[in-house]
């Protein structure tokens, strides 16, 4: 695994500054608790992005996502919304299905998608299907992700997950499979995966 080709991280520098300015508080789901804000930064083969959303209720969030396009794609700013369409809470598990979408007000370009996950304290499985209209391209960007926690942390501990992700890059019509490490503690969530062809797949979240 080589670390020699790290993508530009302009948005991550912004995030670092924000994280210093904002009071300590971040989370892992596309919707926070009622009244909660989430700051989310992602970097993958398509873009670097920064997304801030607010959840007026536990089943809905809306916000703004700023993207720096890669591979010739232009920068965009989406108005986004996410709806928790289904949740099944059990004693030892939780299952979710989310529907989301976003539109760039300037260009009219958009994405629509669905995400789902099922998790226990030990196991996790999730997927995302996303149809994107971006510049002249229209493509799917999908993934499946599964993993397990090697130890069960208590509330407030550092929680660690070993995962594997299979991603479909619709822009280039290729599949990638790569390992992912996930950590969260308190209001912070960090996830990183790496594959030589697509470089880093990074996800950082903070909820407040």
């Amino acid at each position, binding site marked *: 695994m080589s670390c020699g080709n790290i993508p530009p991280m302009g948005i991550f520098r912004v995030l670092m500054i924000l994280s210093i300015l904002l009071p300590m508080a971040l989370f892992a789901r596309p919707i926070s608790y*009622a009244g909660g804000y989430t700051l989310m930064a992602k970097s993958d083969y398509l873009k670097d992005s920064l997304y801030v959303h607010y959840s007026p209720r536990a089943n809905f969030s809306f916000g703004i996502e700023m993207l720096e396009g890669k591979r010739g794609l232009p920068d965009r700013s989406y108005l986004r919304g996410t709806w928790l369409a289904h949740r099944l809470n059990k004693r030892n598990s939780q299952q979710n299905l989310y529907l989301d979408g976003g539109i760039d007000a300037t260009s009219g370009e958009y994405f629509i998608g669905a995400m*789902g996950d099922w*998790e*226990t304290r030990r196991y996790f499985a999730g997927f995302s299907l996303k149809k994107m209209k971006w510049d002249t391209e229209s493509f799917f960007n*999908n993934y*499946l992700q599964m993993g397990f926690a090697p130890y069960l942390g208590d509330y*407030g*501990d550092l929680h660690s997950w070993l995962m594997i992700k299979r991603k*479909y890059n619709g822009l280039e019509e290729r599949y990638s499979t790569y390992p992912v490490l996930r950590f969260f503690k308190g209001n912070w969530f960090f996830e990183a995966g790496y594959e030589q062809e697509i470089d880093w797949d990074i996800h950082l979240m903070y*909820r407040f």
Partner: protein
Amino acid sequence: MRLSLLSMLFISASNLASAENATHEAEGDHGHMSHQSMGITGEFSNAEVLNSERFERLVSGSPTYTVAVVSVNGMVCDFCARGVEKAFAKDPDVMKIDVDLELGSVLIAYGSEAQPSERDINKRIRSNGLDVVDIEIYRG
């Protein structure tokens, strides 16, 4: 669209995985509360919570106490529970909160003058997208 097909399989598989627990937990999914046990069976019981070090720690140093013991479904990760703690921390009557992920329970210690309401507790938990199975309030 191989990933789409795999996603459909994933949804089906997770539903199947939940089916056994759903049968087991059906009695606990009523969505209303009582001071009495709601007949939850299996590994969880409030007796286990009451005898725990967590409970002792929560009430230690208080000559009198009022503690709500809340059994919650869906609280499977630290993130899921984080909002619960925040929701109760806003309540000026709440002195301490303890979350137990293993037992799926939240202990809420109130000030001696407080009159905690089951309806309010239920509302705060549900506003976090979790389900209350049982609430029992103990005074000592």
